[in-house]
């Protein structure tokens, strides 16, 4: 009792300044206190409430073939409330074995609150959101409690981990931080896409700049008060060319940084786009590859996506107690899951890698828990899962990986996923290994997956547990020493455990893949940092094919 009291006093003394420093936090705190007080009179009072507010400013510019096709600038404040009824041991989110899990979205979906710090206007909207969420939580809890006796649960796992409260405050960024020279950027985007004019086989060409600043608020009835900034900008190119046989081949390129000033220089991007065009022209006449099973090298970027999909999603803690999930690694802790010498780390505290900004970085997660570096695999042995506040049998506390898009409730998700090898090999050595393996498997060639656009995986047990990676640049490496040959129309497919057992070696240069990962708690920014991988056996399938026709008339300027 005494220790609790001391904690309370310390907390109160520390938190007062944060509430005082930010008028929105003051409004949110007062409303939370009022609601908790009134709800405490209910038969099933909540034991926990949290609010998240994402105050998001965004700017988007899109150009195509030298014209600006879209320009938008928005600001929105989105609130997400989480009301929990019961207690840490057993609450309204409890999942009995054999029953499907709770929805991951708020009762009222995406709720917007005013952009201005008006106490009555903000409080009334929150009141309705909390009231509805409380009603749902309370009725779920009653229903679950009534079913409790029906299940004889052997493992007593908390429904919500007990954590320390946090107070953290970052000052708001000055206006200049979110300012860019819009006219200059429009000019640049137009110039990038002008490079593709006059080629009737380029079917789609778009350059876009997006710049997003999210000032994130978190507060809970456990006395956590957090205000942090999240910012990133991205330049993207999406181009498709018509293959000589009619199908369409996409090629993408993107650059990401926290601030536009840190994006590559204009000249560098121009040169990259010129190179991209050269690659597209080579792809246009490249061979459309047949399905294949055999050895392959995955470039660092391709390996990053590969690991994110086949490995990263299977170490997200909340899945492992869910009966409907494939639970690939549930009972694999302290066993060998990857070749000796392989390490896998999830590190949300990392802000840069080789001068590249990492958008998987955050200070606190969306449950108000400090993001911690997690050694997931050490020397090939599985050591830890990525934990939100949903405990597993083995891990009772969060590692600060509870993440969600605004409007969704957090589950355990990835941040910056880092793959390392204690025995890195040079590109030349990887190539030698590939050729050796090809010979052994009696293959004329192996594959080199150079760049990828993304991938997907399925982890539940009601569907086939497969993954699919979409490469954009793939080369055949011939055993007989012929030059490497660019091919197209290939997708990398497979099942997780077979893949893990086929990874044999890693390269000595790590690179970053930056992406937006979509799962049950929405889309979140992530990165994967990986060396190249040599895989003894992979499988490919043909990409979907679309017949495409060149327009009957020439482009207007070339009529």
């Amino acid at each position, binding site marked *: 009792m005494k220790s609790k009291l001391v904690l309370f006093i310390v907390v109160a003394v520390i938190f007062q300044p944060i509430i005082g420093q930010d008028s929105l936090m003051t409004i949110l705190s007062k409303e939370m206190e009022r609601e908790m007080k009134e709800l405490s009179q209910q038969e099933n009072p909540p034991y926990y409430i949290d609010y998240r507010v994402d105050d998001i400013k965004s700017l988007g510019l899109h150009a195509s073939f030298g014209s600006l096709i879209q320009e938008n600038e928005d600001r929105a404040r989105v609130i997400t409330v989480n009301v929990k009824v019961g207690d840490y041991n057993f609450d309204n989110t409890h999942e009995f074995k054999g029953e499907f899990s709770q929805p991951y979205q708020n009762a009222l979906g995406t709720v917007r609150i*005013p952009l201005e710090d008006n106490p009555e206007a903000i409080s009334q909207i929150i009141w309705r959101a909390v*009231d509805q969420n409380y009603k749902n939580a309370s009725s779920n809890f009653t229903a679950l409690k009534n079913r409790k006796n029906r299940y004889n649960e052997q493992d007593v796992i908390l429904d919500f981990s007990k954590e320390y409260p946090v107070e953290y405050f970052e000052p708001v960024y000055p206006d200049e931080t979110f300012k860019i020279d819009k006219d200059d950027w429009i000019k640049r985007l137009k110039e990038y896409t002008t490079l593709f004019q006059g080629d009737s086989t380029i079917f789609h060409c778009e350059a876009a700049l997006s710049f997003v600043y999210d000032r994130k608020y978190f507060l809970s009835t456990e006395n956590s008060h957090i205000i942090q900034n999240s910012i990133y900008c991205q330049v993207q190119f999406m181009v498709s060319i018509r293959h000589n046989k009619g199908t369409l081949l996409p090629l993408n390129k993107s650059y990401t940084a926290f601030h536009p000033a840190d994006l590559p220089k204009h000249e560098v991007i121009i040169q990259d786009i010129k190179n991209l065009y050269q690659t597209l022209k080579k792809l246009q006449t490249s061979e459309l590859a047949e399905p294949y099973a055999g050895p392959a090298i995955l470039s660092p970027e391709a390996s990053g996506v590969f690991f994110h999909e086949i490995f990263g999603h299977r170490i997200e803690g909340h899945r492992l107690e869910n009966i409907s999930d494939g639970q690939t690694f549930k009972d694999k802790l302290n066993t060998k899951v990857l070749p000796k010498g392989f390490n896998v780390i999830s590190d949300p505290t990392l802000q840069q890698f080789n001068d590249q900004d990492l958008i998987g970085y955050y200070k606190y997660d969306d449950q108000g828990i400090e993001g911690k570096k997690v050694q997931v695999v050490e020397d090939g042995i599985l050591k830890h899962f990525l934990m939100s506040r949903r405990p597993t049998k083995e891990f009772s506390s969060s590692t600060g990986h509870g993440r969600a898009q605004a409007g969704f409730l957090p589950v355990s998700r990835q941040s910056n996923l880092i793959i390392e090898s204690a025995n890195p090999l040079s590109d030349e050595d990887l190539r030698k290994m590939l050729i050796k393996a090809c010979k052994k498997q009696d293959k004329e060639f192996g594959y080199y997956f150079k760049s990828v656009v993304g991938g997907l995986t399925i982890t539940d047990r009601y569907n086939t547990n497969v993954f699919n990676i979409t490469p954009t640049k793939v080369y055949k490496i011939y055993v007989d020493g012929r030059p490497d040959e660019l091919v197209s129309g290939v997708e990398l497919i497979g099942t997780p455990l077979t893949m893990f057992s086929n990874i044999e070696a890693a390269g000595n240069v790590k690179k970053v893949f930056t992406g937006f990962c979509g799962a049950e708690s929405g889309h979140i920014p992530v990165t994967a940092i990986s060396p190249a991988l040599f895989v003894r056996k992979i499988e490919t399938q043909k990409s979907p094919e679309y017949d495409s026709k060149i327009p009957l008339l020439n482009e207007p300027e070339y009529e």
Partner: protein
Amino acid sequence: MNLNMNNPNTNIKISRMFIFSYYKRLILQSLFTLYFCFSLNAHITQDSVILSAMKDELNRNINDLSLPGYDKPFYIAYTIVDVQNFEVNATLGALLSSDDDRYKDWHVRVMVGDYDLNDENYSYTKPQEAIFRPSIQMPAEDDYLGIRRSLWLTTNNVYHSAAQTYKSKVDLIKHKQLNKSDLEIPDFSKAPVENIYINSPMLRYNKHDLEQKARSISAVLKKYAEIHASGASLSVVESVVYFVNSEGSVVRYPLSLASVTVYAETMAEDGETIKHGITYVENDPDKLPSADSIIEDTKILAENLIELRNAVRLEENYSGPVLLQNEAAAGLFENLFFNKSENLIASRESLQSSSQMNVYYSQNDFSLESKIDKLVIAKNLSVISKPGLKKYNEIPLLGSFIIDAEGVIPQKNLILIEKGVLKTLLNGRTPSRNVPESNGHNRFSYSEGNFIKQVGPGVIKVENTEGIAFEQLKKSLIEQGKEEGLTEVILIKPLNVGGSVKPMNIYSIAVKTGEEHLLRGLKIIPAELSVLKRNVACSDNYFVSNVMVKVSYPSDMIQRNYLTGSLGLEGMPASFIVPDAVLIDEMNFSPIRKSLTSLTPTISNPVK
């Protein structure tokens, strides 16, 4: 689970634009006066970029577009709507959002064949093709080559589809040994070439002022603890329509709309949610009522909601006579004439090929086409379309327009129903069995930021030859109730506030005492046009209702829902001039079921 290097949240608007660019659509909308100029070239200065791009691309395509083995196009039309949008939402005095957007909506129509027989009005099972055709979004800027590039690809795609469809149609006709004369209805009607250029200064709305207006209107609802949610939204859509076709028409005119919506929600003690709103629509934000005037209306709205919390619940079904006043009367006519599937809009039957290769015209059982020259409503009523009428009793008419979306000047006085007998229907350039020519009613309807073309009303007058004073109508209502052995009859009257969409209060009148009670907890069962065929007694006064009509869209005939933001502008601007009170023999109402679980808030409203 998926990972993508592109942020999925940044491309939403792009995909929307790509999707609709594939479809063949035409254009149109109403507009409001200003001046005509028939000398096009003299006035094309700043617009020259858009119109030049349209004309140059149209000329190139109509002359050169040709797919080997297929016919060339015989008709091409382009429409570009250059749009500037602004929308602000506020609640209890604070801004929730304030967004503006600039874009161009565009439509391309390409026909292969000729006026009598072309690729349109034909349904067949197209072969499944996995063919990808490129398209480029129309630039927001006035970018000559950008506009042409977008038109070039869309024309290419629409032409491919039209050419293949036409070939299939001709092959079918040949195969079945039909002659052109066997096809009873031509596919496209001829229309005069129009060169119309209506200049207008761009609206000069002040964003800051509109934000302040939304704040001040919404703030007044802070005074009502019974209101659980509320807001005010203000929306301005300012656009210019450009239309060119291969017949030589060149048209440019402004098309603007502005609205304010104020809404509020409360809950009765038994958990019934009661929400109402008022929407004001004008063609210029400066014509919208002042903040003070809307605030006064908002107070009435809030007090009415509080009164409704304690109103009597309808406990059993009602079927009997109903007296409708003002917007309720206009809503009844609007719904029966234009929202229902059986309405005053021409219906084209399309040529179909069945699996047995029979060729026939589709049958539209709901169309009023077959009832031309027949009695469809009571003999004391006539319905006339007067699209050119700008004002009625000094009230400006929102639905007035000069030219339609197909570049056709509408017929000024079009009698749709004469003394109960159906004479014709509204139509565009696609002939129907009984309406072979366009009467200029293919108009623009605003939907989720896009302008879509649809045949629909502009200004509609319902004339009544036997006007009866309101008090007399009320007496008749009670008498009728008595005759039917009812204890109560129903009166629907709108709340006494401004605006075009407003709450409709439903009252029961005791037939014995004449006492009126406000009702809640009921819904209206949609009526059919036949309700107007029986006794319809109307008042001797006319009333104007300016509304956004959702044509052929099932809607509550009276209790129109308010929509916030630009949604408040969804539909086609129209005006109804109707008798201000209408007594009909029968309407049906049913009670809304009560919830058995408590829906009332567990926590008290923080606004006290």
